[in-house]
């Protein structure tokens, strides 16, 4: 096994372990740390998919913005959950596990049969291609994303302003 393959397997393991930690950790802070680990693993997989710009954006947006936002929400809310953890959720957990395992087996068989991937050499997504496609063919979704961000900012500000009165 070459060194590239071992780093790739490490990224896959970090992603899957981070996803499991994000779902099944008992503390919400550990869940957030698992989410951050999964984001870093996915960024490594993006690098192996020859999309380095996307990997940088993944670290910048998810780890730098969304995880910090979740961390601030956890710090602002504090221990607000009434019952910390109860065992009524155990049945739900078993049901979700069974569904997940059956679905993964099904989809794994589907993937193995249908998509034998052929890696064509020369796929490199540069920022030049991305800029061209965003200003040429995908100009409407690009503008709609900026509109969505503006609406989200105004909505968050309005929600925090309106909730100050009825405290």
């Amino acid at each position, binding site marked *: 096994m070459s060194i590239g393959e071992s780093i790739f397997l490490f990224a896959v393991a970090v992603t899957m372990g981070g996803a499991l930690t994000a779902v099944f950790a008992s503390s919400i802070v550990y869940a957030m740390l698992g989410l951050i680990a999964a984001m870093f693993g996915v960024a490594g997989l993006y690098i192996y*998919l020859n999309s380095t710009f996307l990997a940088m954006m993944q670290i910048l947006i998810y780890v730098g913005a969304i995880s910090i936002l979740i961390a601030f929400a956890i710090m602002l809310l504090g221990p607000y959950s009434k019952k910390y953890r109860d065992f009524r959720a155990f049945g739900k957990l078993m049901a979700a596990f069974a569904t997940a395992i059956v679905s993964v087996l099904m989809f794994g068989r589907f993937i193995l049969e249908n998509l034998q991937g052929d890696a064509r050499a020369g796929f490199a997504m540069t920022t030049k291609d991305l800029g061209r496609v965003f200003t040429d063919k995908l100009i409407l979704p690009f503008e709609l994303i900026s509109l969505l961000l503006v609406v989200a900012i105004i909505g968050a500000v309005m929600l925090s302003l309106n*909730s100050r009165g009825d405290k």
Partner: protein
Amino acid sequence: MNDLLYNNSNIYLFVAVFMLFCGIAGLVYRRTLIGMLVSMELIMNGAGLNLVAINRFISPENPYGVAFTLIIMGIAAAESAIALSIIIIIAKRYQHIEGGDMKELKY
């Protein structure tokens, strides 16, 4: 070159499916709203990884998968900002953030 491990599309798709079902299990299992939001982020990451893998292995001449993954990142940022502000307001009003107990608008 094709027999290297990271030039095989099945592993990427398997990781994407694994993240999707981890997110679904978290949506069912978690009781607080922040845990559900973390699971939603996992689902969106799995979708993005799936799009980029399909783009790289099926049609490498178009950059649409990477472009839509960038759009998914923007949507995830806006969604988490709005959701966290709503969660903070809910915590101020109800003094807890458990999803199962909020049923005033249900009936």
